[in-house]
């Protein structure tokens, strides 16, 4: 009963349409996993008539709702049953015997050996049959197209679930000379429900960040030299770049595409107090265009607005002397502004400011996941199934002796029959030559 329900054509099409709707909803409504709270709240305030439904049905996190899980579970079950049924059908079709009905037939006068040779020469292979009727099939793997397609879908969806549930992924911004020790807080981290805590079993030291640019100022490559240090002090030096990853102790290490300069600034209050802070700025888009960032240092009553050019000359993307401009804001009121290069001092409101160091920084991503090979294997099986199904529809010829030296050839094609009818005519012509 359940099996019949899950294999029903109406159930299958309804489940596919529902999955399509979920994807559509995730596109229309900002999702919590890839949007900030600010973006979600803004969207909700712009669509007040939809917000009750969004909140009640969890449409801002559709992929973690019970509705989606239920539909996906039903879809997976349906896929498993369907794959099983299709494998059974493919086996039956591949090795079936007897003559299919409702097909084209033709009588030939020839001997068995010649018939075999002409059919094999036309791309047909002898497969099974029975004592009196011989069966020839062109592209017998075509029977397996649907089965493989559904099997591949099952494998990829299952493997994707394993990845989503167990993957651990962390991103860290590291300044040249800075070390990231096991247990230290990640700048961005995401772990699957069954993934557990993401903790590196080694220390990562950022030795050097080397960006390269095209003459158009577009990014050519970012390479970082890192040192991976184990518990016993033994270390491995490595170099990673975008699209040039490395594997280390079960982790895959990626070069992130975000990088820039870190400005080390000392704030000295007129009254005597002060503090040092690091301002992490992303690389500007062009040599003559700055990048901007706002900072609110801890226990500091003002906002610091920063602007930086890659070089004070504004003539190169990769200059030795980056220029930093700071503005001190109290609400909307500007209390001061100063422009500095490394080693210089200035005044910002009631503060003496000193830029005492500038270093490069870059982001590095650490990923530990299981099931990825299953996802890709599933994809390949889907494609193989699709190719078998649409590119190689199987054609069958049954050879049945009716009298001595007279045989009836019966031709059958279950998919795209009209496109291949002429093939049987050509075979008939070969017998008449």
């Amino acid at each position: 009963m359940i099996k019949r329900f899950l294999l029903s054509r109406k159930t299958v099409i309804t489940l596919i349409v529902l999955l399509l709707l979920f994807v559509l909803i995730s596109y229309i409504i900002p999702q919590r996993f890839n949007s900030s709270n600010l973006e979600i709240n803004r969207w909700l305030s712009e669509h007040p008539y939809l917000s009750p439904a969004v909140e009640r049905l969890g449409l801002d996190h559709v992929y973690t709702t019970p509705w989606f899980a239920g539909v996906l579970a039903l879809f997976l079950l349906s896929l498993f049953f369907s794959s099983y049924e299709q494998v059974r059908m493919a086996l039956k079709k591949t090795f079936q015997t007897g003559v299919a009905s409702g097909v084209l037939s033709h009588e030939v006068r020839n001997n068995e050996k010649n018939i075999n040779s002409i059919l094999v020469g036309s791309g047909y292979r002898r497969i099974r049959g029975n004592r009196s009727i011989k069966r020839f099939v062109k592209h017998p793997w075509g029977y397996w197209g649907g089965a493989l397609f559904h099997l591949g879908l099952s494998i990829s969806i299952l493997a994707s679930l394993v990845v989503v549930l167990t993957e651990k992924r962390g991103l860290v911004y590291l300044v040249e000379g800075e070390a990231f020790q096991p247990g230290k807080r990640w700048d961005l981290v995401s772990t699957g429900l069954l993934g557990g805590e993401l903790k590196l079993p080694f220390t990562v030291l950022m030795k050097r960040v080397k960006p390269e640019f095209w003459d158009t100022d577009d990014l050519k490559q970012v390479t970082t030299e890192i040192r991976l240090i184990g518990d016993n002090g033994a270390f491995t030096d490595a170099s990673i770049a975008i699209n040039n990853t490395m594997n280390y102790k079960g982790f895959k290490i990626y070069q992130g595409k975000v990088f820039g300069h870190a400005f080390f600034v000392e704030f000295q209050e007129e009254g005597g107090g002060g503090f040092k802070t690091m301002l992490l700025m992303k690389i500007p888009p062009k040599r003559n265009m700055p990048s901007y960032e706002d900072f609110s240092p801890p226990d500091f009553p003002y906002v610091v607005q920063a602007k930086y050019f890659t070089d004070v000359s504004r003539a190169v993307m990769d200059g030795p002397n980056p220029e930093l401009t700071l503005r001190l804001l109290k609400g909307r009121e500007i209390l001061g502004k100063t422009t500095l290069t490394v080693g210089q001092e200035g005044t910002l409101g009631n503060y003496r400011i000193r830029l005492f160091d500038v270093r490069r920084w870059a982001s590095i991503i650490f990923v530990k996941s299981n099931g990825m090979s299953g996802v890709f294997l599933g994809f390949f099986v889907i494609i193989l199934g699709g190719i078998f199904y649409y590119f190689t529809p199987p054609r069958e010829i049954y050879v049945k002796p009716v009298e001595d030296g007279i045989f009836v050839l019966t031709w059958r094609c279950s998919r795209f029959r009209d496109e291949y009818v002429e093939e049987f005519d050509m075979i008939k012509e070969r017998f008449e030559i």
Partner: protein
Amino acid sequence: MKDPVTIDVAIHWVVVLIYITATLFNTIGVIFKREVFEKRSYVTLMAGMFVHGVVIIYRWVVSGHGPYMVKHEVLSSYAWVLLFLFLIFTKYFPRIKISSVVVFPSAFLMVALGQFTNPAIKKIPPSLRSIWLVLHVLFYKIAMGTLVIAFAFSLFYILKKRSSARWTERLPELGVSDVYAYRFTGFGFIFWAIAMLAGSIWAYQSWGRFWGWDPVETWSLLTWVFFGIYLHLRRFFAWKGERAAYLYTIGFILAIVSIFFTPLIEASIHSAYFR
């Protein structure tokens, strides 16, 4: 005229003119049953494709990357792949030759549209330097080519069914149009899947994730699932004829939006493409 971009644009205009000529010959040949014109259209087309192929390679060498960055080169390469695929498919399925009345003008329109976009050469970012990217892009172009052929047959079906104009007699029988629309959608569905697979391997190689719900990825998945529904309805619900043709047309529009419009309306990791 030493500037490579100027040379590229000038040769592309020559290509447009050749393709327009081929389209005119072809339309006259098909509609008025003038075989000589039809034959000439293919000779003209191949000459155009040769020049077109040379200018694509020239730009590839000059820019240092394949045609997958700016609109000008993307549209041009889509047109070339469409024509190349069409010629290959006519070898195996000679009856699809009639779809040339849609394929030829589609190609010249794509090249011509590309001429009105900024042809400046853009340098390739490091994340786009991967063999998987080349496969990803190539298979989308191949998928689009097969979908244009399927669209041609869906259109023929609707025109023949709806119009009593005499020239529609030249169009294939309704059953033939229907089966070719179905078959080529199947091809497109598979090529689209290969393109998504190559893209996910590339994403995994570059960013450590195979799927990120990026707007372009999401639209691509939506399109693929839509074509999956179309094929399912045809296979298991015996959908065919006019309603299948209309449903396919919606899918085809969705495919065009996915490939050519989503990179423009959304900020995404694909934003280096088609800008």
